[in-house]
């Protein structure tokens, strides 16, 4: 854990512009997996070997699977799209944003016009060179009003109609309003760069592996891109198979039928650990698995009830029960790895007398309320069960209603009064845009504090990192006092792999294996 803290302190000291202008590869190589990741025998062996097929048995897919890098829906899609495509920027192993295909992304002085230049000499899998046209094509395809893709809402500030190509590799995009969080928004898995005239039947990107075959809900195959701009990968190919069940994933790994598996539950750690030939990987990521309270609905429209609920939870006990002490303790704030994350706010702890008195003042003594849960991620339902148990101490009676995942994300999603949700890591401002403003696409809590919104607007017009950080801190104090989220902890990402596999790293965003990065992975 200490190593993580150090990483973060270091990055706080370094300014954002410095991050962005550094070559991505250099920094990536210099950072070392911290804490548990390093302990899990992940150090690359000395002599990598070329060749071989990495067989992945992954969960979270279905017939909705896609290979569209700008319309990713489920957890399986990440595994595929990170092979096929690159973004203008990407997260490094510490979840910091680095340039990837872009050589430069620069704002004007109020962040209302952005200039993007892509690196020279990069080719798509079909041999077409990467140009500014592809960047504009991709962005326009995402926000197309007739058929908006999933990433459209968070790019609504861009005025792509008036965007201009300046030269072969450079384009300039004006914005409807200042958009200082543009670069932080871009590493999202919904913004991969595809070439002009992208055809989903023959998906082409600039990524380390090329498309070979794909059957939704079953299997996909990718082969090495010899021409990869960042150096060709060692592996000949990657075969990704959909698994519907954790038990069969583990059995397949133990029987040597697959080499890597992902998204395991905490009890599986013991099943895999100690077996010869298999290693477990427990990443202290900062994806979200949060409780949500609707701030515009009874009883949570009274801020005291929200504060009471946050005090009812024994976070350490909940983490122990659900994730066997793995994961980072939360403080009801999101975006843990963002340099703007406020670590100075006191860690919230269980305080039953205080919670009881808040509830009494609000007139909700002996509160009885429904909670909607669904197995949306490992540990989600167990968390809800622990919550119901712990709430009894404050006289709060929580009735769990468990739905299937499909029903949960059906027509009533974003309308549940007291529920939960899960997201992978996003930097602070994009996460705010996504979740906490009036009109945000995933505003589960119906949060729309006017001061908060004003501060956000101000921050988006502030290019100076220090000043913007101050504004973010002010916003986080509002999250901390009045927000509708309860973030008891950031869940770990638990993955396992065969001891034949070398060079796997764990990232911090909640996406397995450092964003499914198999560029430097090899088999012995």
């Amino acid at each position, binding site marked *: 854990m200490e190593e993580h803290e150090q990483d973060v302190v270091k990055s706080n000291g370094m300014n954002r512009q410095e991050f962005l202008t550094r070559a991505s590869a250099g920094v990536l190589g210099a950072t070392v997996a911290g804490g548990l990741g390093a302990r899990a025998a992940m150090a690359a062996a000395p002599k990598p070997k070329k060749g071989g097929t990495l067989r992945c048995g992954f969960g979270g897919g279905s017939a909705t699977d896609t290979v569209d890098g700008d319309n990713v829906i489920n957890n399986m899609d990440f595994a595929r799209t990170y092979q096929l495509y690159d973004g203008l920027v990407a997260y490094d192993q510490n979840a910091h944003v680095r340039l990837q295909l872009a050589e430069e992304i620069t704002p004007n002085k109020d962040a209302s016009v952005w200039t993007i230049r892509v690196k020279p000499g990069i080719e798509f899998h079909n041999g077409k060179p990467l140009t500014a046209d592809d960047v504009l094509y991709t962005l326009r395809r995402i926000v197309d009003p007739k058929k908006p893709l999933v990433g459209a809402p968070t790019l609504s500030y861009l005025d792509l109609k008036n965007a201009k190509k300046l030269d072969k590799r450079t384009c300039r995009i004006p914005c409807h309003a200042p958009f200082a969080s543009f670069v932080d928004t871009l590493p999202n898995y919904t913004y991969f760069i595809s070439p002009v005239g992208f055809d989903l039947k023959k998906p082409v990107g600039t990524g380390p592996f090329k498309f070979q075959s794909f059957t939704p809900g079953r299997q996909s195959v990718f082969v090495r891109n010899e021409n990869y701009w960042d150096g060709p990968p060692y592996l000949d190919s990657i075969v990704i198979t959909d*698994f519907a069940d954790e038990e069969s994933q583990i059995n397949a790994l133990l029987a040597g*039928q697959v080499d890597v598996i992902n998204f395991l539950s905490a009890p599986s750690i013991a099943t895999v650990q100690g077996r010869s030939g298999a290693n477990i990987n427990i990443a202290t990521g900062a994806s979200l698995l949060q409780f949500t309270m609707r701030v515009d609905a009874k009883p949570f429209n009274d801020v005291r009830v929200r504060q009471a609920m946050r005090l009812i939870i024994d976070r350490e006990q909940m983490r122990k029960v659900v994730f066997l002490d793995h994961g980072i303790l939360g403080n009801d704030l999101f975006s843990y790895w963002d340099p703007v994350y406020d670590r100075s706010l006191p860690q919230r702890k269980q305080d039953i007398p205080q919670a009881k008195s808040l509830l009494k003042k609000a007139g909700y003594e002996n509160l009885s309320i429904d909670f909607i849960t669904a197995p949306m991620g490992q540990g989600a339902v167990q968390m809800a069960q622990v919550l119901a148990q712990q709430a009894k101490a404050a006289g709060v009676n929580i009735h769990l209603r468990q739905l299937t995942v*499909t029903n949960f994300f059906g027509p009533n999603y974003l309308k549940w009064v007291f529920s939960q949700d899960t997201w992978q890591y996003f930097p602070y401002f994009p996460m705010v845009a996504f979740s906490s403003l009036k009109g945000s696409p995933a505003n589960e809590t119906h949060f729309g504090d006017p001061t908060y919104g004003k501060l956000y607007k101000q921050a988006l017009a502030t290019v100076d990192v220090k000043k913007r950080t101050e504004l973010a801190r002010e916003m986080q104090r509002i999250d901390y006092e009045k927000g509708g989220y309860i973030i008891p902890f950031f869940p770990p990402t638990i993955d396992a792999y065969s001891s034949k596999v070398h060079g796997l790293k764990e990232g911090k965003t909640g996406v397995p294996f450092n964003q499914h990065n198999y560029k430097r992975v090899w088999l012995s």
Partner: protein
Amino acid sequence: MWRRVALSVLTLFVVSIVVFSATQVLPGNAAYAVLGHSATPQAVQALEKQMGLDRPAVKQYWSWFSGLFEGHLGKSLVNGESVASLIGPRLENSAFLVAVAGLVGTLLGVLLGLWAALRRDKPVDHVLSVTLLALTSLPEFVVGIVLVLVFAAVLFHLLPAVSVISPGQAPWQALKLLILPAATLVVVTVPYLFRMVRAATIEALESEYVEMARLNGLSPFRVLVRHALPNAIAPTVQVIGLNFLYLAGGIVVVEFVFAYPGIGQGLVDAVSDRDIPMIQFSVLALAAFYVFMNIVTDVISLVATPRRLFR
């Protein structure tokens, strides 16, 4: 006979309407399933329009139904691929697994049943009867998991633990992958058949005409094959038919345990994705199998019971 076939077609038609109505009652639709987490009202609306889900239900059903007569089964709502190309291979996988498990199970059940009947009240009979009775009480997922733990994942590493058949690969090209799922299905279907064969054969062996045949000095083998067996066939065929019907349903669990890409797994996916054309075709295929198996078993037992044939 023709009446029977006409009734079957009618049954399938009714099934398709019932299933379609059921999909309309489920909360959410394919647009929500596809968008999942990203289901903003605007995105859902756009996608519903694209998928044709904004049309009235009757119209949606009609366009699917009329499509059948033009020879196309429609396209999956969630990924746009044709239903035939998605379900065809799954159907093949499941059919092959059911056939293998069904044939092995039938053979084993009949032989063991005969053996036990001939050795009635001897140790062999007791051991077989008790063991198989114990096995009937185990659900298929328990049998499957135990087999995996013993033969694949933990104790021995002799067989594959999961049976992932790659797209484009036919199940008979990967027979090793079929051993454990087929064995699981055999273990859960044999006991019932065994008991039936044993009981029917014993009953036949105790009958007066077998007694007569024996007194006439015929060899025990001839008595069994020529006189006892024909009378045990009719009830046995019914059980074999039932076993096959059971397999068509029981395979869902086994496919799940072994990650076997069959129609059961596909149907589970389709329901959770609210993918109506996929649900319709999967259910119809299963229903057609039921209807077909019922007719086949009826015909066989009819043929095996001459007195009924001529009535």
